[in-house]
């Protein structure tokens, strides 16, 4: 066949461009797959257990009770959103390749980027959905617990004959500070952002590695290192601590691993501190940058991958 025929046919065939509909199809298939693998049910069950555990410890005052409930539940959400993000992503890509499902998908007019993005969005939709459900449940429980604890505290003051208006107002303020506020939702949003970054890193690793175990192990290593970026920076900027090799290694680690401590606002929320809008915006921007960079590198790797 002549080059002229090829080029004329290529010119007449419309280009296949990025399609949000196609990405949505992939994402929905991924969500359905994960839901039918009972992953969401597992997340919800675990977090409900965590909420239960939040009530189980003996505590001194209402403030402590509410703080403990938030601490245990948000901690559980944080761990499990990361675990689900890493494990799901590490499993899905190699499984599609092993089962040859990837062949049937990519032999259709499906750009590889659409496939990757669809898979990522699917996993994030599952994590996001789970977090929304848990946020709603936690908000409800916190609100109920807050009302109950306030009534109990006022009753206690009344019995002690200390129920002055100032004392009641003070109790109300303490309980309200530790109770249901917008800060709780921001904490859940920060957990989602952190899971998003870790999941995107897992997707990148998954596109490079052929082993699921390797992806999972390295993704968790990156997560752990990512939480200690401040230490790495300190190590790098303190000349007396190590030689050139150590500093180069620290620089490399800091460059490779995303700074996950940027999303650590859970402790502040548990302590009843107010999270400013600027901090939320900052976190969201950082997550968007990490995600874009990781996804771009993943696309470059996956586009060249021999299947």
């Amino acid at each position, binding site marked *: 066949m002549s080059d002229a025929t090829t080029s004329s046919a290529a010119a007449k065939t419309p280009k296949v461009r990025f399609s949000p509909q*196609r990405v949505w199809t992939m994402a929905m298939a991924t969500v359905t*797959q994960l839901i039918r693998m009972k992953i969401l049910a597992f997340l919800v069950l675990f977090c409900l257990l965590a909420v239960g555990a939040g009530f189980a410890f003996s505590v001194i005052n209402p403030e402590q009770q509410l703080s403990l409930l938030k601490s245990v539940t948000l901690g559980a959400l944080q761990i499990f959103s990361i675990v689900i993000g890493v494990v799901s992503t590490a499993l899905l890509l190699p499984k599609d390749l092993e089962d040859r499902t990837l062949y049937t998908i990519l*032999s259709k007019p499906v750009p590889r980027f659409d496939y990757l993005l669809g898979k990522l969005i699917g996993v994030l939709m599952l994590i996001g959905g789970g977090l929304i459900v848990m946020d709603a449940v936690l908000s409800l429980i916190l609100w109920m617990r807050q009302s109950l604890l306030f009534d109990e505290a006022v009753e206690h003051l009344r019995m002690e004959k200390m129920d002055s208006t100032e004392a009641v107002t003070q109790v109300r303020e303490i309980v309200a500070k530790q109770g249901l506020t917008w800060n709780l939702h921001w904490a859940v949003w920060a957990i989602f952002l952190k899971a998003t970054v870790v999941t995107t890193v897992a997707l990148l690793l998954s596109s490079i590695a052929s082993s699921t175990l390797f992806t999972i192990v390295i993704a968790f290593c990156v997560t752990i290192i990512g939480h200690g970026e401040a230490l790495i920076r300190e190590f790098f900027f303190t000349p007396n601590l190590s030689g050139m090799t150590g500093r180069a290694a620290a620089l490399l680690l800091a460059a490779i691993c995303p700074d996950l401590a940027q999303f650590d606002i859970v402790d502040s929320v548990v302590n009843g501190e107010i999270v400013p809008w600027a901090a939320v915006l900052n976190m969201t921007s950082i997550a968007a940058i990490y995600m874009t960079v990781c996804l771009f590198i993943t696309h470059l790797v996956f586009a060249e991958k021999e299947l």
Partner: protein
Amino acid sequence: MPDTPAVSVNHLTKVFKGTLVKGAFRAVQDLSLTVKAGEVYGLIGPNGSGKSTTMKVILGLLKPTEGDTSIFGVPSSEVASRSDVGFLPENPYFYKHLNGRETLHFYGSLCGMRGAKLKERASEMLALTGLEDAATRRVGGYSKGMLQRLGLAQALIHEPRLLVLDEPTAGVDPAGSRKIRDLIIEFRSRGITVLVTSHLLEQMQEVCDRVGIMAHGRMVREGRLEDLIAVENQTEMVIENASPALLAQIDALVKAAGGDTRLLRSGHPRTTLERLFLEATNEAKKS
């Protein structure tokens, strides 16, 4: 573009990079072939001869080391080349959590199909491949033959002009295998081009217009099936109800002709084991 071939492979070479332990592996070496629009082309060869690698390069799943491939004139490196292709890999698996109909809807959606058109086409494909009764069953519970037929249905969902089938009858029982061959013949009658690989040469002989034989990554024979399998210096006659006397006369005539003319063999033609199996199992089904 009536003259544009369905598939064009020009001087294709594919070398898989080696590792520290193993050296590089040359899977395909300077392969050229052309599949004309509307024909059934069989690519045959032993395991490791490079058939599947060639198919993957044609489908853009692998990049060629040298040479190029195109589908209906569009280079395989472009995603658009897959707009007119349906692919059935060897022993396909689909998302086990979906049922047959959902699987077809999924693949149809990936090809940009939507709404009533997609539903109608999925039903049509389920009927064509005989999977209507299993349409609402999870794919995880499908037999190998059903998976293979579902694979054909997904390959056809977007009405491609070219079907690429990698060992379509592998692991399928004779009845299922016959069904797939009948479908291939039907595709040809509908004007769909088929590029198929198989180890089962007898089956290929039934459906292919042209074949290419590959060995060690190279094309060793290629051409029209009838031309390739004809034994030029022999003639076959099949006579019904011939008496022993007539056969003796024929034998005498051949001997009388002299020269190199010889009667090599005579006897009752035999059916194939496959045909016998299909007849026997159909009789059992009827009774």
